[in-house]
């Protein structure tokens, strides 16, 4: 008797990945994950064979819940993840003219403008420079907008803050490549251009290139995923997602910013005094509890970790505090693993739930001494019309019956 589970695993070996890859998506889109037939005792029947490529357990079906538009987004399901690294296929997406198909054998990076020697680098060329590997987050500047504008009880961590992902990137420091082309001293800005259908362009101050900017081609041990810029992207650690230009094809060095659409009409921050911040690159310190979180329901009383992620675009997270009483008292949480600069760090605080209604909150502090603010503090500084860089304190309400709902100040 061939069970459905056996069939899935067997056909993966026989037919390659195509059938298997198609299945979880098809199942998810129909709203019912494929449930495998489980032997009464898995220790009494032989298991499945090896396969060309591993897949998730059919019991696990994390989804980015894409909007499905070429100008849309898809969000990382934070509540389904543990540790600090975002699996590559769950890295959030935000595209402005779709995901281009690019052949790495013909892709090239042009570097020109205020340089001694304008150069064309193939992907093979770029991989011949000395490499570095760094863990950094990428977060969309608009991450958290829904929870800031209209906090609702049924918001999940994915919907609240799913435009943050954390990755081990490999590439070459931009400074190494700029040294190679001979940057002229008068160059103070450079333009980065992507090879997608909107030729995404952003202006970047030269200091960033000389600090920690990277040209990356690998993500978590393998080439970039197409949605993250395959075959090459600019990585500006700690800076708003949009400026980490994907499908990078051109760098032009100059003496002033270009004032592209993406740094004037968008990604600027109106202020109450009738001005707007421009080139507001850094993502300030922020945290979110990913468990307990809606739609989870606490099935039993007793000890459990309150766990989540914290990050800062200005360096390391120094501490995360957790409150279980709506912010009246705060407790130091444990930072799990190293707190790397401009990377997410997971935190946990052990909590003994005795069935009482509770409001759980988290609050991050980074190494500059910046403390994650309340929503009202952000509004006082920027006005309620502020449209990017939402890093207000959020959390959840746990009801006496164990139901968990999102809480955000309104």
């Amino acid at each position, binding site marked *: 008797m061939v069970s459905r589970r056996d069939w899935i695993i067997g056909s993966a070996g026989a037919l390659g990945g195509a059938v298997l890859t198609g299945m979880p998506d098809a199942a998810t889109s129909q709203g019912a994950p494929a449930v495998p037939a489980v032997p009464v005792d898995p220790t009494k029947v032989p298991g499945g064979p090896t396969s060309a490529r591993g897949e998730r357990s059919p019991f696990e079906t994390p989804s980015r819940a894409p909007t499905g538009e070429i*100008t*849309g987004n898809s969000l990382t399901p934070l509540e389904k993840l543990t540790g600090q690294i975002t699996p590559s296929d769950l890295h959030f997406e935000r595209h402005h*003219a779709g995901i281009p198909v690019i052949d790495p054998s013909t892709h090239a990076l*042009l*570097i*020109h403008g205020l340089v001694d020697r*304008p*150069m*064309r680098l193939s992907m093979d*060329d770029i991989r*011949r420079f*000395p490499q570095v590997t760094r863990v950094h987050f990428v977060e969309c500047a608009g991450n958290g907008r829904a929870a800031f504008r209209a906090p609702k009880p049924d918001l999940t961590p994915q919907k609240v803050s799913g435009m943050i992902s954390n990755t081990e990137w490999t590439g070459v420091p*931009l*400074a*190494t490549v700029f*040294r*190679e082309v*001979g*940057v*002229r*001293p008068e160059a103070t800005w450079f*333009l980065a*251009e992507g090879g997608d*259908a*909107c*030729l995404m*362009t952003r202006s970047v*101050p*030269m*200091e960033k290139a*000389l600090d920690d*900017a990277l040209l990356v081609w690998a993500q978590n041990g393998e080439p970039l995923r197409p949605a993250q810029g395959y075959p090459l992207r600019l990585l500006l650690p700690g800076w708003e997602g949009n400026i980490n230009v994907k499908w990078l*094809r051109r760098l*032009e060095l100059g003496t002033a*910013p*270009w*004032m*592209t*659409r993406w740094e004037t*009409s968008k990604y*600027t921050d109106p202020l*109450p005094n*009738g001005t707007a*911040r*421009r080139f*507001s*690159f*850094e993502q*300030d310190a922020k945290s979110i509890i990913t468990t307990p979180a809606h739609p989870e329901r606490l099935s039993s009383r007793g000890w459990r970790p309150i766990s989540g992620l914290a990050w800062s675009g*200005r*360096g390391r997270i*120094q501490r995360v505090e957790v409150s279980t009483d709506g912010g009246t008292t705060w407790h130091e949480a444990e930072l799990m693993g190293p707190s790397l600069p401009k990377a997410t760090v997971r935190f946990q605080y052990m909590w003994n739930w005795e069935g009482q209604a509770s409001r759980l909150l988290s609050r991050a502090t980074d*190494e*500059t*001494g910046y403390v994650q603010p309340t929503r009202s*503090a952000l509004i*006082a500084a920027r006005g*309620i*019309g502020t*449209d990017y860089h939402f890093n207000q304190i959020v959390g959840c309400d746990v009801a006496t019956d164990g139901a968990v709902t999102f809480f955000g100040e309104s």
Partner: protein
Amino acid sequence: MRTHGWSLVLLAGLVACNGASDGVSAAAGGAVVRFADRDPGTVPGGPGAGKGYAIGREATPTEIASWDTDVAPDGATLPAGQGTAAEGAVLYKAQCQACHGAKGEGMAPAFPALIGRPKEAEGFVFAKDPKLVRTIGNYWSHATTLFDYIKRAMPLTAPGSLTDDQVYALTAYLLAANEVIAPTATLDAQALRAVKMPYTDRFVPDDRRGGPDVR
């Protein structure tokens, strides 16, 4: 001969720029090395101090010219050609209206509003109400951005398909519809360079610096 002197310039810049984040991360971690300081001489097995890797080849002027279409606020790279607002109005109907609406009202969230100068949104008061719609006329800081963006990215379904004359015409139409230039205007490189957007002076540098202040 390549120039490596720029790393010295940078050291000066290091002190001047954004001292908060750089200074602090170095102080707290001690291990974060700015890549600018990563001379080939410090890489094991590398070519030695001050030397290059000689990787890649020189880009040809043709290669650069074929990709280098960007237009900055000085308008120095604006191409030849011209277009009127009236011509742009016809083009708008054919090329833009389906997504951006007959009156440039847009279709949220994917297709932004382009046209409109409602009284309540004048004066750059966007911080007080998220519902105030930002348009080219009441928000955009540079007219050259319109030309640059339309030419590189629009229309969404056929980017790069418009001629320079058409891009001038659409730019003229959108600026006229936003009451920035006269409805009878013709735009060419010189005329576009001269356009000053109503709120261009309202944009300020980022004053957030980390530390205890919420800004």
